[in-house]
């Protein structure tokens, strides 16, 4: 065992730890409905939030998906969720986002490409649903932390027949 390898590992582990902590914090803010804080502190001004269709899962530019929000529409989405206009999220659902398999896929210099798995449980209006999917993030470094520039959630479900809707931020 060489000391160089230990040092390298330590850098990687620290980076992985920072990324993981960042994602866990994001999940916590979303679970606690602290959506304004999430939007203001964790996203870039040119955020893109995408959920592709369940039948066309890749990011085919020609295909229609389920969500394709720029910053303005995402801001509108969370405003609505917070101001009581979203009937199906009033009362607010209880959610629990379980993040795992956090992996730094590449360091592109300007940003990190990060993958993770997510199971988001949602309970509300007498229903319980689980959304299972894969996160793909572009994280832009900012000081000791990051901001998210691209946030893609590829659902693993074949259909959302059981869920019916997707009214929370995954």
């Amino acid at each position, binding site marked *: 065992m060489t000391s160089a390898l230990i040092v390298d590992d330590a850098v990687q582990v620290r980076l992985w730890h920072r990324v993981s902590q960042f994602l866990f914090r994001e999940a916590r803010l979303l679970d606690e409905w602290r959506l304004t804080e999430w939007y203001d502190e964790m996203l870039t001004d040119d955020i893109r939030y995408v*959920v*592709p*269709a*369940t*039948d*066309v899962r890749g990011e*085919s530019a*020609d*295909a*229609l*998906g*389920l*969500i*394709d929000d720029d910053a303005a*529409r995402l801001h*509108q*989405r969370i405003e*609505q969720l917070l101001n009581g*206009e*979203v*009937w*199906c999220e009033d009362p607010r659902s209880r959610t629990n986002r379980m993040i795992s398999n956090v992996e730094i896929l590449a360091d592109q210099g300007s940003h990190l490409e990060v993958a993770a798995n997510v199971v988001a449980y949602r309970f509300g*209006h*007498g*229903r319980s649903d689980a959304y299972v999917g894969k996160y793909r993030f572009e994280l832009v470094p900012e000081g000791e932390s990051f901001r998210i520039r691209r946030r893609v959630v590829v659902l693993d479900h*074949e*259909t*959302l*027949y*059981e*869920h*019916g*809707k*997707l*009214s929370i931020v995954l």
Partner: protein
Amino acid sequence: MTIELQRPVDDPIVVDDLESLSFRVDRRAYTDEDVAAQEMARIFDRCWLYLGHESEVPEPGSYVSRDVGGRPVVMSRGSDGAIRVFANSCTHRGALICSQPAGQAKSFRCPYHDWTFSNQGELVGVPIPDGYGPGFRKADFGLAQHRSDSYRGFVFVTFDPEQPRTLTEYLAGATEYLDMIDDQSEVGMEVIQGAQLHGAQANWKLMMENSVDIYHFRALHKRYVSYMQSLGSVPPRRRGGFGAALGLGHGANELPPAAARPLAHWTPMFGPEVRPQIEATAARFVERFGAERAERITGTNRALLIFPNLLIIDAIAITIRKIDPIGADRMAITSVALAPKDEAPEIRELRKSHYLTFLGPAGFATPDDIEIVESCQRGYGNRTVRYSDLSRGMNKEIPETTDELPAREFWRQWDRLMHGDDGHFEVAHQVELQGAEKQ
């Protein structure tokens, strides 16, 4: 075959009272598993049902497989170019011969014993054929082909070999509305890739009613209205528009748009860059159809219900929504977007973007529709309240879009078919007017 309704004849589900202008539906219609089973036999096994759009099988060899009326089917464009609809079930022992949702195939091979069928349905391959006697003829074992037809690109199928009407006869007054969809391109319309496959834990008819109900818009969809206003969209000052009964259970609403339409109705929310080309398209429509019809096609929003389970909503984008019952208290919803094949890329992007804002399981409106129909279904759990009321507009010569005429047209046809009667071609509204005159 006659199936007796499990209820006395003096206890009707649909109470259509033209004397007192009252229209009530017994909520058993949404909750009773026996009613749901009879709907499959009396409605879904008999009507013409929407299957898909011709653009989904663009070339010889293209196919899609999906469930229609509870039955797995394959829509295949054969090597000869003709569209056929087959039962997705091997004629040998019954396995699905096609498990892919869509693709290209010269033939379909059953994975169970490798029986192989051409994309025109003939049985072309049977392994170890000497296991059969001289009476076995491959020609007797082709895929079961369903009667299908298309109108302006919309492909329908019927499982009733004795269905008395041609597709065009069946569509009745709805053909005019399908014309106004297909006329939107000179080279044809196409389904955009990427389906929104979702559902609701509620009876399927609730979503049929909801989709032609404009009355709920301002109450339930406040957040969508505020979003559109934030984009600078101004709702029309007068209500305008009208509801129509189109015969044989079909209905529609037509109303002035509250926002832009990507086809050819520009408002500032689309931005100044695309204005010249959208206005040029609008001018082209006037050339093709004259000012009045062009305005109806390009400058009017429409929600069309085709009995029993198809909805086509032409507003900020066109959505084709197929509703499939799963027992009494669940449904599957399949939504796709339809657009002109020759649409400019930047207009297509606008269309997709605004489609997602309103529609689909994560839009700014549809999730609330899903939740409200589930809420109705839960409300029906209290059987003390027996009836739902659908009488709005029965007193009017021209029902408004906030009235419930299209839903009544649906229910009247539902009632006729559930009683085994499909001979009527009545336009509900004329009947209502006769009732109103008697008063």
